[in-house]
């Protein structure tokens, strides 16, 4: 049987799983698949990041990367905290404005359409410019409509390292750090239209050394800006702090070892059609790289931020966090996945069980484990008494009439063979795995989303759209 990959479950999410009757009730009412989000947890996660700032005496904003989840409830709950929001499309900006975020708490990032730039400038949110061309276009809009100066961060990329050559994947985004002179000229030229706040980077990597190089590169860019007479005061280091999905690192180690064994033909496959997740067998030697999310991480989320800030600058021989503080700079971060840790789950009803194939009412776009390479077992919530105590290794097929529609190509481990009507709960899926790519292929229903919160030992829920942070009990509280 396939080895287990049991998900890490904390706090409210844990007690949600213990409430089997409640879960069955909402799926019966609203259908499968069903997304559940836990807005209260998001506020606790914001505090986790803020604690890192406070320990290092740093100021600056924690901007939630909206793209990780579309839920209204989560955004409205976030608006009730001190956190900001990073929006990467026109609709996300409208969403954030409508949820009540103040203008200092909204950062427009990513490549932007003209309409997106217009609304950002008109509303007066912070714009994180992706290129000098975009900066020029923004300045043109501000000038043409006589808008107030827009506060601006400039995204950089392609930082040079000292000592060793720290390689990084080429990025499509940002102003090359080697061509800063053009950026300064553009900023000087448009100083009546934009107020320069500082520089930014966002690297798509789990690698800490690359991020340390980028942060150091930003410090140097800020120094260059100061020399040009600009007065920037913040550095935005983007996101990518990560989540540890699994409870037990040994399970991850065992599973990856078994996969290596299966690829080499030393044990029966533990994946659909012997899929290697990037590994392949060449003459008895394993080649390739395991192309999945590192599901168990010893350092993730706020701890990862703290580690980055504690990393010594190669040139200054001083911790990067201390250099930021010394320089009086604010630090902005844009976590997505990490802020949504333990903030939600996707529920699916079991439709059919044949041998080792379990078909559920939902598909691989509804819970994007495979698309994002996140490997973990779902949690079985039986409808009545459990079917038995004999564990089962099964494959999970979706509701699309396609051979390829598997929720995960891994054989998952369940404590008992499921029966039709049981629920499979894909926990900790709020970050990127919930609705990032959900559609309605074959006219299958897309999941509804409900917001749930603990209330006097039980659970209260409402449709995502109905959620607002006010409970109606404020006067008595």
């Amino acid at each position, binding site marked *: 049987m396939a080895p287990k990959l049991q998900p890490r479950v904390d706090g409210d999410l844990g007690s949600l799983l213990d409430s089997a009757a409640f879960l069955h009730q909402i799926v019966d009412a609203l259908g499968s698949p069903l997304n559940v989000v836990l807005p209260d947890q998001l506020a606790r996660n914001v505090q986790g990041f803020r604690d890192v700032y406070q320990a290092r005496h740093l100021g600056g904003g924690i901007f939630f990367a909206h793209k990780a989840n579309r839920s209204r409830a989560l955004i409205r709950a976030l608006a009730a905290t001190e956190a900001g929001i990073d929006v990467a499309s026109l609709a996300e900006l409208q969403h954030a404005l409508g949820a009540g975020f103040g203008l200092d708490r909204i950062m427009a990032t990513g490549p932007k359409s003209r309409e997106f730039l217009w609304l950002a400038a008109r509303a007066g949110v912070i714009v994180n410019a992706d290129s000098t061309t975009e900066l020029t276009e923004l300045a043109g809009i501000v000038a043409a409509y006589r808008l107030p100066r827009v506060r601006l961060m400039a995204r950089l990329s392609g930082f040079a390292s000292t000592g060793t050559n720290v390689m990084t*994947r080429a990025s499509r985004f940002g102003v090359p750090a080697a061509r800063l002179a053009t950026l300064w000229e553009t900023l000087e030229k448009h100083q009546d239209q934009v107020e320069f706040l500082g520089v930014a980077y966002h690297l798509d990597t789990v690698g*800490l050394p690359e991020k340390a190089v980028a942060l150091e590169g930003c410090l140097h860019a800020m120094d260059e800006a100061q020399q040009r007479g600009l007065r920037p005061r913040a550095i935005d280091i983007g996101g990518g702090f990560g989540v540890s999905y699994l409870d037990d690192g040994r399970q991850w180690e065992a599973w990856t070892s078994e996969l290596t064994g299966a690829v*080499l033909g030393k044990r029966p496959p533990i994946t659909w059609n012997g899929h290697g997740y990037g590994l392949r067998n060449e003459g008895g030697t394993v080649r390739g790289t395991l192309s999945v999310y590192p599901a168990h991480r010893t350092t993730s989320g706020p701890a990862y931020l703290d580690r980055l800030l504690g990393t010594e600058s190669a040139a*200054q021989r001083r911790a990067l966090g201390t250099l930021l503080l010394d*320089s009086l700079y604010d630090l902005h971060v844009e976590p997505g996945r990490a802020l949504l840790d333990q903030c939600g789950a996707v529920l699916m009803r079991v439709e059919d069980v044949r041998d080792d194939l379990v078909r559920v009412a939902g598909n691989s776009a509804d819970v994007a484990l495979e698309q994002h390479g996140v490997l973990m077992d779902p949690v079985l919530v039986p409808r009545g008494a459990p079917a038995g105590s004999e564990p089962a290794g099964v494959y999970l097929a979706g509701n699309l009439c396609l051979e390829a529609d598997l929720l995960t190509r891994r054989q998952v481990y369940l404590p008992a063979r499921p029966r039709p009507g049981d629920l499979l709960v894909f926990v900790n899926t709020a970050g990127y795995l919930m609705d990032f790519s959900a559609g309605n292929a074959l006219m299958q229903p897309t999941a509804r989303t409900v917001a749930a919160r603990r209330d006097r030992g039980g659970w209260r829920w409402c449709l995502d759209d109905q959620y607002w942070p006010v409970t109606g009990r404020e006067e008595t509280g």
Partner: protein
Amino acid sequence: MRYDSVTDVIGGTPLVRIDAAVHGLRNIDLFAKMELFNPFGSVKDRAAWNMVRHRLAGAAERAETVVELSSGNTAKALAVIAGMHGLPFRSVTNRMRVPEIKDLLLLLGAQIDELPGQSECLDPTDTDDPLTRMYHTVSAAGGGYLHTDQYFNDLNVEAHVRGTGPEIIADLDGRAPDYFIACVGTAGSSTGVARVLREHDPEVTVVGLVAEKADFIPGIRDIDEVHEVGLFDPDVYDTIEAVSSDEAIDGLLTLVRRCGTLAGPTGGGAYQGAVRYLRRLDAGLTGRRTAVFIVCDRVESYMSYLRERRPALFQQPDRTHSVRTLTAEDLAATRTIGVSDAQEWIAKENPLVVDLRSPFAYRALHIDRSINIVDDLFAEMLHGGLPFGRRQPVLLVCPVGEKSASYAALLTRMGHPDVRSLAGGVIAWRDAGAELVRD
């Protein structure tokens, strides 16, 4: 002994008995093959030299760069050898985890390329990883590289088939040991030595040691990573066991403190793994047996590795004049001063303003006429006593007024009558709209 080239000194290392009082085995003689005596410091000198010796002349003609995927001893040996022959050396690695080795390679003139980490937002369809791409680049013929390819190159194994293996047999008076224990990195030394020993005596037991998963011992692969090694053949080993970094350090400490053998963590792991394995057999033995393990390299390059894992080994007693020894009363006695009072005080009494931030930040913006002594340096200076006269008033500043407060407390305790700390630090100064300059 006289040699024409330092590469002639490679190999011919001694086999040294480990005192039974140290290892405690009653029926087994345990010997260390002292590969740390190789001229560049490790067992990898043999493989490095054997992989390039016949190709150097051609590479020099074609002005090629020697390249290897290594972050340790192979890179070190190749960097030295390439330098001796006027060739550049480039090391490509995704695991440059020992800072001393990194510095040493840079000192030797190597170029180090560190591969990017995994994507945070993964694209699972992109299975063409940077390492594979790099491998194709450096392996292409006519690409300007002499790629030594240590994980797949049979010359790596051959170095030990011709050198290390026969040397062990010769030093044991023509007998193979009953047990041979080696850590598995490229699998070159263990495979080569095992082949020679088995040919001599098929009864020899070969034990391969790998690192525990999610642990790190420099130069050893874990149980999954060994499968990525072309030279690795599981049939070479009678058994494969895992050692932890903790055990490797225990072994290292035994070797350096009790055996006069300045071994690094890999040698320590081999010793500890060997003793652990042999102890299980020892009691049941009736006759005498012999065992050999390899001491791969030296301890000096692993100070930060050891400090990270066993800080207690390096603990220094606290010095008297240190902020770490401040009491609550010391801190309570600190004089702090707000921004506007500080401005007035500066105008009236002209105190020495000491900015404790980094030179980098000081250069960008600071309080006019302040001097910059970064806190680390200031701490060092204070160990020796007061760095300014008692009649000179002093204002200490730092970003938020926390560090400056503790240094002010320390100076007060050391007897300075008028040292104050800027409340809220330079950030409060800036936020109050007071002037900051850039000289």
